[in-house]
């Protein structure tokens, strides 16, 4: 690849937000037809740099040259007209519209002023087929899982004829087979000479698809490497300025009484009767393919969906009133996977978001002790190392990974006996991941029972004491730590019964 002229050149980009210098003299060269990976900690400025490229923000200073021309797009529309297309980290679909309508939003094929829905449906189906996704184009987006939404978002971008495509953490929500399909699509794009800038926190992705990788730290670009001539340790060193053990530390904790006991929990058409139990200090991993009912199981346990039968017992007491409020009061907590729709009040301050579930601790007769609340929030920000300018900042202005940490902070504050984690490390950088593993270790050390839903095999195998595997809404089997290997988990996840 050497000797080729870069098609995109960014130099000396600076960007300041109230209270933070998001970018400081950042720069980037992208060659035609390459997959260029951007790597960096949460809040390093990756998304911001790409938003400047694609016209969502304007830089305070710096130059962007694309295809030999200096550009300064003032809006995403202007950038799109130059062929710069971005798939956002935060999903931007209209929930009420169908998949096809979302894919063609603003570019509907028309005939004499009328929308040709058949052409739209067909087009959407073709694009999704390329991603090996068989969602019906007529389904409302609100009914899709996060992964499916991510695929629809990618389809939107593929519909436009991009001359450069930016993908901001497209794989965070996807399963391995979907990721493979995505990589095939990326390969064919690159074959046509379209460069792809790819942001991901998954080291695996980088080595599977990347040609070159640029690492960012604290708003600066600290180095570019050929993927072939580097290794994980070097990248992490660049990223965080120190080395991090790749091994997930498994704490030895004393496993105690059963705290969560689920018996015959069933939801018609969604969950076949599920029974399981988790002890204090234990981590129960939940594995399964996309759509296997893992999230649905967690929601049913938590009372977010009404179950058709079965009981849930927390510390021996059977839960009767099934709703989140009652569950939390009984000591259950649920960290949802979709932070934008089910987690955060994005327009409200970080502080308010953190203390939402634990206001009772700082309130007397419904009156809040604002100082105590603030101290509590500050403590959690420190403990989780959330990057922010101020507690009063709108949550929407945090980087994606830091938003995820805010959700975690809220549930730490609630001091639950049982915590259900649904993909807790999605979109979180390596260093922060290690911190979260540490944190989960700490929690079980304190006797909390943890249910961990995750699609990341190393995370699952590294942390879980036992692994429950779901398949088509049913509990296919539970493996002990000793017998849980990648192969066994996959076999069960694909529907083979326990032998």
């Amino acid at each position, binding site marked *: 690849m050497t000797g080729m002229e870069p098609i995109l050149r960014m130099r000396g980009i600076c960007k300041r937000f109230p209270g933070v210098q998001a970018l400081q003299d950042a720069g980037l060269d992208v060659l035609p037809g390459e997959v260029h990976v951007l790597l960096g900690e949460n809040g390093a400025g990756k998304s911001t740099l790409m938003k400047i490229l694609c016209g969502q923000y*304007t830089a305070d200073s710096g130059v962007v040259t694309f295809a030999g021309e200096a550009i300064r797009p003032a809006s995403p529309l202007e950038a799109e007209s130059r062929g710069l297309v971005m798939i956002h980290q935060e999903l931007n679909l209209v929930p009420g519209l169908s998949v096809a309508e979302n894919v063609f939003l603003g570019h509907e094929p028309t005939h004499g002023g009328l929308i040709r829905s058949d052409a739209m449906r067909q087009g959407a189906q073709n694009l999704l087929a390329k991603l090996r996704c068989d969602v019906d184009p007529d389904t409302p987006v609100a009914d899709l899982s996060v992964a499916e939404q991510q695929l629809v978002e990618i389809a939107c971008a593929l519909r436009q004829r991009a001359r450069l495509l930016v993908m901001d953490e497209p794989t965070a929500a996807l399963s391995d087979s979907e990721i493979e399909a995505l990589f095939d699509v990326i390969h064919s794009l690159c074959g046509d000479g379209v460069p792809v800038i790819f942001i991901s926190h998954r080291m695996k992705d980088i080595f599977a698809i990347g040609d070159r990788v640029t690492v960012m730290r604290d708003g600066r670009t600290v180095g570019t490497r050929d993927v072939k001539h580097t290794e994980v340790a070097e990248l992490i060193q660049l990223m965080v300025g120190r080395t991090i053990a790749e091994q997930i530390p498994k704490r030895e904790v004393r496993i105690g009484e059963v705290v969560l006991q689920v018996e015959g929990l069933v939801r018609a058409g969604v969950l076949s009767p599920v029974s399981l139990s988790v002890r204090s200090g234990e981590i129960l991993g939940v594995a399964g393919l996309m759509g296997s009912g893992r999230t649905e199981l967690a929601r049913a346990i938590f009372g977010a969906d009404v179950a058709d039968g079965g009981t849930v017992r927390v510390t021996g007491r059977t839960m009767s009133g099934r709703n989140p409020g009652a569950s939390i009061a009984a000591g259950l907590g649920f960290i949802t996977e979709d932070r934008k*729709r089910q*987690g955060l*009040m994005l*327009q409200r301050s970080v502080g*308010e978001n953190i203390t*939402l579930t634990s206001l009772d601790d700082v309130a007397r007769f419904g009156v809040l002790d*604002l100082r105590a609340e603030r101290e509590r929030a500050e403590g959690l920000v420190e403990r989780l190392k959330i990057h922010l300018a101020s507690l*009063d900042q709108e949550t929407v202005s945090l980087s994606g990974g830091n938003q995820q940490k805010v959700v975690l902070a809220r549930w730490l504050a609630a001091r639950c006996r049982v915590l259900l984690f649904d993909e807790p490390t999605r979109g979180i950088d390596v260093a922060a991941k290690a911190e979260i593993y540490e944190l989960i270790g700490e929690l079980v050390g304190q006797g909390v029972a943890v249910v961990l839903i995750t699609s990341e095999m190393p995370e699952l195998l590294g942390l879980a004491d036992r692994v429950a595997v779901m398949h088509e809404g049913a509990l296919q089997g539970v493996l002990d730590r000793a017998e849980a290997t990648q192969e066994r988990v996959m076999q069960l996840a694909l529907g083979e019964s326990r032998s």
Partner: protein
Amino acid sequence: MIRHLSPRLQTLFVLIGVALLFGIASPHFLATDNLLNVMQQSAINAILGIGLTFVIISGGIDLSVGSILALCGLVVADQLVAGHSGAVAIGAGLLVGGVCGLANGLITTLGRIPPFITTLGMMLIARSAAKIYSGSKPISGLPESFRALSGSVAGVPVLVLIVAVLYVLAHLVLTRTKLGRYSYAIGGNEQAAWLSGVRVGRYKVAIYTLSGLMAGVAAVLMTSRLNAASPLSGEMYELYAIAAAVIGGVSLMGGEGGVLGTLVGALIMGTLRNGLNALNVPSALEGMVVGGVLVAAVVFDRARHRAAEAEKLRGWTRYRKLVLAGIGAAVVMAAAFGIRATFNAPTQAKTFTIAFVPKALNSPFWAEMQQAAEREAAAQGVRLVSLAADRETDVERQYQIIENLIQQKVDAILLAPAGSKELVPAIRKANDAGIPVLILDTRIDQGAAESMGARVLTFIGSDNFEGGAVAGRYLADKLGGKGNVAIIEGISGHETADRRRLGFLNGIEAHPGIRVVASQTADWERARAYTVAENLLQAHPDLDAIFAANDEMALGALEAVAAARRLGHVGVVGFDAIPDALANIGSGRLLGSVAQFPGEMGRLGLRHAVALLRDGTTPPREILTRVEMIDRLNVGSFAKRGMKAPPSRGNP
């Protein structure tokens, strides 16, 4: 902290700017009395605004507060009239408000019905309940002690003190309690709040109950101020309260804003209305100005948001220009009117200013009265100021207009009262300020006036009873003394409506062959009359004639008759002889209409006011203007006589 204040500060600056502008344009505006006046006049809106702020912040909407206000007001007045103590009456009013709000909340949450629908339903239900409860009549005759609520303490109106206390409390609740915090959370992301254990349903119920309760509080205060309660009060008030909140920076998307902003928003609206009155800006323009400010506020807010979120400098400048242009236009307009006002200001001490306050200026009837008064004023060399509410039923607004006129120290007021009882306290205020009041068109309730010690100089108006009788005799004659007739009444409880109906019954008394088969109200409205007539025609195939108590309703009924293909079989007679009716009489569709002479009322009113001011001549206590039956035979000559008002009894 600064960040939290800034949007609110912006609206505060707008308020101060607007106030200064009016201060420059009108010498009366910045007087302490008038500023207190503005606050008093904003009070009802501000109180409703508290409830709406909570509701909107939590992502909902409440359209029912105006109707709940009417219902609660009646309950309070009724309790007082029944001899219960003030505390009991207030308690009952608040209870009814709270219960209505509770119902809103329960139906919205348990039924999972969008609040827009629930509260729209409650708006209709509460309004209807108010009419049934009161028999569609205003309730008055409240004990003097209850007026204390609208008095003052150490020069500050009690109303203003109450608003201040409520706002301090509301601000604390919103910022320092779980209820407030959860309101934001629910509006910010309802699903997330629910999954975080917020008892969303319970808190929503609490929030809607609070909103209903605030309507109850507003009702208590308004009843005390007007010394009466009417089933028609509070129409459109829900929208004004929403406007106040939005101007104050509360986002209709939920999750954003605060009560202090709403207070400033309500004050901006009050200031605009009061200031425009002071500048004698025609009231028709009021909506344009307030509406303009509302839209500008939202544009401004969006622009600020976008600037903060995306820092798209170019977009921001574009909006800023737009907003500045809008504000500039408003400034220029106000300045122009200001200059006009100064030009028209009396140059010699001798010129009198006389105010003319009709119920509204939205029909030919009032327009004719106003034009005649205008001509007479020019002839007499006095200045005439005409101000009116947008709708005939907005009693509180007419009350405010009179307060503003008192501030301006006009020399006399010609008033066509929108409510025969509710305007009595305002007349009393004018009396106290030494301003004579002459009543046009609709009588003031004798008992209410006496109990409050309010005095009016004279009543100048049509003999409505005689008008009804004329119509009755005419119809009886046309039908040959035999047939079935139906009456479409005006708003029941209105003095005019009652007298016309009674007059009509009196007119047909001598003809036992004439049978009244139905008598229903259509609230003076054309569209309502169409429906009522449609039903009448269905129910009574043998109907021969319809008497409608005004022409608007007569024309509605006429169209229903035409649609039923019974034109020529069912005759329609109206009242007022408005141009539209005359045209239909000319073409033979409408049988006839009783003519009143509004021009004459305006002319005589002005003439008597001037005579009083110049020579101290007191007019007779009652001057009845003529009524005349107009039908196909005399419609031509009547139209030719046009504006030339015919002589009438009681001419000075």
